[in-house]
């Protein structure tokens, strides 16, 4: 299985919106394997999205089951045509990206999500997710919509004060 080339910002193609997967054929299965191979070749990536390797289809891989410090997870996931149908809470965490070398920043994401998707063979799947796994899924789905975490970076200062205001209301 080949390791695919990762598009790096400011490559304009990273802004492209990906289209739904319709054919779960042998070619697609091969692609999913190559995508996983590419994720594993990267520096400790817990997720990867198809458009990061220049294939503009709605499929991502997420696996937070092998963290140094264990987190709540659903194992190794291939998510096809993923859709977040519910959000709850928000939390700040630090993110980086295979497509953005030498930069990490703080990003606010929903703390809990409800996700519906298809597996790699097209069967419907659904999950309630939280914390790091939910964050990873949100990061990857952003790629499918042509967005990078750079669009969402916040300073710690703004976060501290924003939360204070939220609490009062």
């Amino acid at each position, binding site marked *: 299985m080949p390791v695919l080339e990762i598009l790096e910002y400011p490559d304009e193609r990273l802004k492209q919106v990906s289209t739904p997967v319709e054919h779960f054929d042998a070619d697609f299965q091969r692609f999913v394997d190559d995508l996983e191979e590419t994720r594993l070749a*990267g520096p400790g990536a*817990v*997720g990867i999205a198809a458009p990061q390797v220049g294939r503009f289809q709605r499929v991502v891989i997420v696996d937070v089951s092998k963290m140094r*410090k264990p987190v709540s997870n659903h194992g190794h996931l291939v998510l096809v045509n993923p859709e977040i149908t519910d959000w709850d809470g928000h939390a700040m965490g630090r993110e980086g990206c*295979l497509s953005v070398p*030498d930069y*990490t920043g703080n990003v606010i994401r929903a703390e809990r999500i409800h996700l519906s998707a298809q597996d790699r063979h097209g069967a419907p799947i659904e999950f309630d997710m939280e914390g790091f796994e939910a964050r990873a899924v949100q990061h990857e789905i952003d790629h499918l919509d042509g967005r990078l975490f750079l669009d969402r970076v916040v300073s*710690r*200062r703004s976060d*501290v004060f924003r939360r204070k205001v939220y609490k009062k209301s």
Partner: protein
Amino acid sequence: MNDWIMLTVVGADRPGIVAALTERLFEAGAHLGEASMMRLGSSFTIMLMVKSEAPPGTLAGLLEPLARDMNLRIHVDPVEGGLHRHLEPDVRITVHGADRVGIVARVTGTLAEAGLNILDLESDVGGSVAHPIYIMVIEGQARHGIRALEQVVEPLRREGIEVVVHAVDTLIG
């Protein structure tokens, strides 16, 4: 040979300082690197990495009219180092409490002894004039592990300083 310069700018805050400064640097053919710019008190402060063909003295001269016009104090210092040398934080520590003399020294001294290397610190004073509160957010590297930091902040909590140690696990995806 390294030609980065650290530019330090301080002046009474007013609209347009950043735009005027960066315009002047652009005209001088200077490249900008990492920067921290913020309002502190009623001053505006800038620490800015600049790379320029012109020697530091010449750059200082080019900025002189701007310094006069906007009443800014500008320092130009050659520095070692450059871009792409980020260190990744693995811990974030939030601190707040009633403001009192010595709170920063007490907290940072305690954390330094337990192995904290500070990469970034932002602090502020909020509350009211009568009852000021001190708020601090630190990001850094826990060289002796996060547990070591958690253990030493316990006595600080008993002194009424709220200190919370959060592990930072950077998500790469």
